[in-house]
């Protein structure tokens, strides 16, 4: 990037399994007010805004119509990314990097409780010519991917169940987490199989929430009173959209995005580069698959190391200290931005009961869910030359 970019404010509303008390616009407004106060800005200071949404998730066509008012950015440059929230982070960061904008607001939200059948929507994302009329739910892909990943890597269903136990346990200390709890490997493996070997308890439950970030270029980010968290590396990628062309055992999108993000951040050895990581855990096996795709451990190591406690809050590499999607709740395309917001609190030393000791640099990784092969990677740091 031609210019250094930092996150200078965060606002989180939620997370909760239901939110009948307010609309998505009110949720966004609440998160924006917090983010602007955190950054010490007024709406007038904002040069541009990016929001993240997909029409059919919102139940509104051309959803970007309803984005400017609750963010206080009417008549500003504002656009919506129909994509992952780390793609949204890219859209905001790249605008600042051009030098034409100093302060940009980024918003992503999820009102999953408004959606009667998310699985039906995911299935509607299948290729209408080649896949959809075969009549299988898109989530069946997750079962196929899990089976292939376990077969190729040697990890086991017990390792996947351990991910659920760990993440839900982490979320108990997270005041924003909606699904913290104590469970066991046996309880997870006793839940009913949905798309074998994928079981019900290995799916992250949906939550409602809104995240607003304020981003700034170097000059504005280093102004007095600001506590910038720098974006050292950022990329995202799409592997084969055609399901038939994919290697179902691998997260190609994650490998591709990580390669570019690490190059941007100047990271040669990811294994020793991070004080903690927040990775996508929409399904328990995805956390293991993503840890290996990111090069944070060798193929087949992610499961055993999960069992050994290496990835716990006090372990060698804390993974999803927030509880991740399995523990805190899954925000779909906004999940990546929630993980960014939690990571900013860690890097500032503001994470309270979740705080990781000496947290100076971290990685956040996202995936858009079935049936996509798209996801992002961001490297964040609390200090910068």
């Amino acid at each position: 990037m031609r210019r250094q970019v930092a996150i200078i404010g965060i606002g989180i509303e939620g997370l909760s399994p239901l939110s009948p008390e307010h609309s998505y616009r009110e949720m966004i407004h609440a998160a924006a007010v917090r983010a602007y106060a955190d950054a010490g800005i007024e709406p007038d200071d904002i040069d541009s805004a990016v929001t993240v949404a997909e029409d059919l998730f919102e139940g509104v066509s051309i959803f970007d119509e309803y984005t400017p008012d609750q963010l206080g950015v009417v008549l500003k440059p504002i656009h919506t990314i129909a994509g992952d929230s780390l793609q949204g982070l890219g859209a905001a960061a790249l605008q600042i990097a051009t030098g034409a904008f100093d302060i940009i607001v980024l918003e992503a939200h999820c009102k999953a409780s408004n959606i009667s059948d998310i699985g039906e929507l995911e299935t509607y994302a299948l290729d209408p010519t080649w896949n959809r009329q075969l009549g299988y739910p898109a989530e069946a892909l997750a079962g196929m991917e899990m089976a292939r990943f376990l077969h190729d890597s040697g990890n086991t269903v017990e390792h996947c169940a351990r991910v659920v136990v760990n993440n839900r346990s982490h979320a108990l200390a997270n005041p924003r987490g909606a699904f913290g709890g104590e469970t066991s490997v046996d309880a997870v493996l006793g839940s009913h199989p949905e798309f074998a070997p994928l079981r019900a308890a290995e799916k992250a439950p949906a939550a409602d929430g809104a995240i607003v970030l304020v981003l700034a270029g170097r000059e504005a980010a280093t102004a007095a009173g600001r506590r910038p968290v720098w974006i050292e590396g950022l990329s995202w990628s799409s592997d084969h959209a055609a399901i038939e062309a994919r290697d179902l055992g691998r997260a190609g999108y994650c490998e591709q995005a990580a390669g570019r993000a690490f190059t941007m951040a100047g990271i040669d050895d990811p294994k020793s580069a991070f004080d903690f990581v927040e990775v996508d855990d929409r399904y328990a096996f995805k956390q293991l698959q993503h840890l290996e795709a990111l090069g944070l451990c060798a193929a087949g190591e992610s499961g055993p190391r999960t069992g050994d406690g290496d990835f716990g809050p006090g372990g060698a590499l804390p993974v999803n200290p927030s509880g991740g999607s399995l523990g805190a709740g899954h925000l779909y395309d906004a999940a990546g931005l929630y993980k960014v917001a939690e990571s900013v609190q860690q890097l500032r030393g503001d994470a309270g009961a979740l705080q990781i000791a000496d947290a100076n640099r971290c990685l956040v990784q996202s995936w858009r869910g079935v049936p996509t092969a798209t996801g992002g990677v961001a490297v964040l740091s609390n200090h910068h030359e």
Partner: protein
Amino acid sequence: MSKTGLRRVAAVGAGMTKFMRRALETPNELAYGATSAALESAEMTRQDIESVVIGTAPDAFDGIHMNGEYLTDGAGGLGLPTLRGYVGGGTGVFSVIQGWYMIASGVFDTCMVMCEEKMSPCQPHPQGAFVTIFDHTTERPLQPNLLWIFALEMNRYMSAYGINKRDIARVAVKNKHNALDHPAAQLGAEITVDDVLESEMMAWPVNRLDVSPTSDGAAAIILAAEGTAERITDKPVWIDGVGWALDTAYWATRDLAYPRYVETAARRAYDMAGIKEPRKEINIVEPYDPFTYKELHHLEGLLLADKGGAPQLAADGVLDRDGDMPSCPSGGLLGVGNPIAAAGLMKICELFWQLREEAGARQVPGQPKTGLAQAWGDLMQVGTVVVMRR
């Protein structure tokens, strides 16, 4: 926006499919056709592309959730960072703004910008999908559609400035005439003002020939950074100014007589391009014309005509292809067709060809140096503006 020190970005290739009412190709095949044509025009291959921008308007048209994911293969996005930005009808021109910031950031040197729309899968008519753009609590129960709200806006524009329907109908005559020279056009025709006024009344004061068609099609533009662009082509067309603005969602609170969001966007683009006197400096303009009155409305918002003064420009021939300020020399949405996002990008393609003097029978005389394309969308709410120079 600070203007100094920005990395320059140029268009180096362009391509599009034919626009038509009902394409037999899948959306991905349309995308592949447009991107292949753009690569061929620039003598590039997919391996030369570092990033991809995908533009497509409501998923309800193509009938695919997360349509940007589906279109990744046809757009050439495999293994690359792709970004699908979204500002409703303004998306086509906005996609180039996204490509601009991808490259101007310094992260990428090349970007494929592809817009696709396939409205025909929406049965019995895509107008049905538009009911879902309205506020679910306050507006949708009224069962509004686009013709209905644009009739309100056209009526307000006419009554605010004392404009009659005959003045506005000339836009349809001009654009459908211009489209006869466009090989990809869907609705080129020689018609008269009376034909427009006598065509079926849709919602007063909008007649059928005041309205652009529903269409299937795709368009693509390849962008490259300064330093790279000159190695690809001897005739780069520079993206010198960009601007966009989104007004409040509560459209019923605004005066519909004037599109202030277009003016706001245009001022940003002029500022970045260093344009002080747009009426003298813009040689060729492609304003968004989904309805006849919108072309005039937008010329005013772009500060290229006085408020209420654009109809006189049409009457005086100023907007004709050989006039002082050719407007929609492509044939516009009214003539070439309106596959929403692709129609906006078609306007950028037209500027690319016109400013390189490659527009064939459509070529505007006088070696135009500076062009402007604009699109509009959402609830009469968004303006997207790009200024290009050779």
